[in-house]
């Protein structure tokens, strides 16, 4: 059975009155249920217009937009919007209402009873991570980051299946932005909404998108692909110049150590006889030998000291300074490797030795599809 996309755009065109060019021209787009699709492109590419046509803040000139198979134009507009979470850059919290009342806006409009609203607000406070005591405060008493969390809570209040976000983190400083992006990903892992997000920040798109829609001026889709594919195989010169000449570096930020196949490396159990250990060293062309005890990595010994008659356990061990986790980014792994004498980083998953990662392995990884195994390990 073929699944219907959560959101489907067919031939959607918007021309604003008094203009001669289409702001969005014949746009086709499918957004899978439970995925995060990011719209990005230069200014004038119609990304915000496209977003606002989904909840009909802007009516398309022609074309059809469906949410879960239903034509949005056929639903009463206020009813439609109550079913769609909407988050904007300036948040737009109601300054005269407490945080609690702000979050409760849509449930109240829908006529939920007080107990149900109260319980829902309690849940959302947990979900978006705001302090319980803030509920009785007013928006102006909160920081920008806190306001944006409240904005997300308010959008999620009536548990809409679809969330539209228009540059939601554009107004906060970079540190808070990074944290809010992480929080959105954690949140999404729990709530599984279908999210369409507009941004002008490529790093943000790469970080949070399942798929990126790169739009060109006039709302033309240049490429619709996963972040890794967009960076690996830009579909056009436009895409290539948009993503910049540091595509490989960006991919390193995107992919994690866990995306690479694990490699045992010059690592042997602590009770290995020296001749066997030397064979491993020769095979790996390594000057350093890693030793393990059961699942634990103990450290590195110098290959030149592995002579017949010694016990590996007696040799001086250098503690493994260069360690990464499966969830570390490849960029982070590179950094660690550059600063290590052994030129390899040990992959440690919660104290369990998984293998090693080398620069050569990372470079080889960039040649392939890194998004295939993109699910974080553990």
């Amino acid at each position, binding site marked *: 059975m073929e699944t219907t996309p959560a959101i489907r755009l067919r031939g959607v065109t918007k021309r604003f009155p008094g203009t001669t060019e289409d702001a969005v021209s014949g746009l086709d787009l499918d957004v899978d249920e439970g995925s995060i699709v990011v719209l990005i492109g230069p200014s004038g590419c119609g990304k915000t217009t496209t977003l606002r046509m989904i909840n009909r*803040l802007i009516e398309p000139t022609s074309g059809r937009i469906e949410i879960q198979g239903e034509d949005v134009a056929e639903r009463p507009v206020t009813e439609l919007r109550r079913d769609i979470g909407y988050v904007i850059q300036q948040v737009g919290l109601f300054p005269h209402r407490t945080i609690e009342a702000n979050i409760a806006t849509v449930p109240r409009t829908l006529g939920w009873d007080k107990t149900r609203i109260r319980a829902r607000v309690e849940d959302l406070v947990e979900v978006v991570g705001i302090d319980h005591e803030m509920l009785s405060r*007013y928006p102006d*008493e909160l920081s920008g980051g806190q306001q944006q969390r409240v904005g997300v809570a308010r*959008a999620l209040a009536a548990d809409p299946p679809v969330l*539209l976000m228009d540059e939601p983190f554009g107004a906060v400083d970079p540190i808070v932005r990074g944290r809010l992006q992480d929080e959105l990903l954690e949140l999404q892992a729990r709530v599984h909404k279908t999210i369409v997000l507009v941004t002008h920040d490529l790093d943000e798109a790469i970080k949070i998108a399942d798929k990126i829609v790169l739009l060109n001026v006039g709302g033309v889709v240049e490429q619709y692909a996963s972040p890794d594919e967009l960076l690996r195989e830009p579909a056009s010169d436009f895409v290539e110049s948009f993503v910049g000449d540091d595509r490989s570096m960006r991919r390193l930020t995107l992919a994690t150590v866990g995306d690479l196949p694990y490699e045992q490396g010059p690592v042997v159990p602590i009770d290995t006889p020296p001749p066997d250990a030397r064979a491993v060293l020769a095979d790996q062309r390594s000057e350093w030998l890693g030793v393990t005890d059961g699942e634990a990595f103990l450290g590195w010994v110098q290959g030149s000291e592995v002579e017949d008659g010694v016990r590996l356990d007696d040799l001086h061990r250098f503690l493994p300074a260069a360690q990464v986790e499966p969830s570390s980014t490849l960029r982070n792994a590179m950094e660690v490797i550059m600063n290590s004498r052994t030129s390899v980083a040990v992959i440690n998953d919660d104290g369990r030795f998984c293998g090693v990662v080398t620069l050569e392995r990372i470079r080889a990884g960039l040649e392939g599809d890194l998004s295939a195994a993109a699910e974080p390990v553990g």
Partner: protein
Amino acid sequence: MFLATRAANPLLRWSYFVEQWDRIAEAIFQHVQLTLLAVGFGFVISAGLAFAGMRYRWTVTPITLFAAFLYTIPSVAFFGVLVAYFGLGLVTALIPLTAFTILILVTNILDGFSAVPAAVREAADGMGLTPTQRLFTVEVPIAVPYIINGLRIATVTTVGLVTVAAIVGYGGLGGLILDGLRRAFWTPLTIGASLSILLALLFDLLFFALGAWLTPWARRRQKS
């Protein structure tokens, strides 16, 4: 001679309060009545004009110009002209007083609505509030501090202007002032003027308290 006159005609003779209390009480009542009616009618008219201005942006300039024109008419002339049509009394007093409040009220109401941030409107629309819900649950509350401020200024101004309406025979405490002036008898003049000032301050305080009570959110903002 001069000293004798002062002794016979002091600025304030306290016994006047007892002897003429009925007259003073009636003047206060009339003053409050005129003020509230003028501001009340003025507010209803101004609210209507402001809504028209918001609905049809182009009407804002003519509305404001008309209100400003009304405001520039010298009050004595305004009252005087109306006597020919409505005679002496309440109606003649009320029309100019109402007209004078409109400029203050219309501009403040419009300021209040333009103080609603665009993002707040967009969020309200995006969450599926109907235009009516948006107006009464979002825009009006946000405009309240401005509206209260307009009412406050209009009321205090009107309290002062009411005294001028004494020339058409319906001026509340102004009647006492006029009486004192005509007879060069200072006591009613002092009482009329003082009570008028007191009344203005009282209304000022009332609106301040009302504003604070209606907008706890604005108060907290100043604190933080």
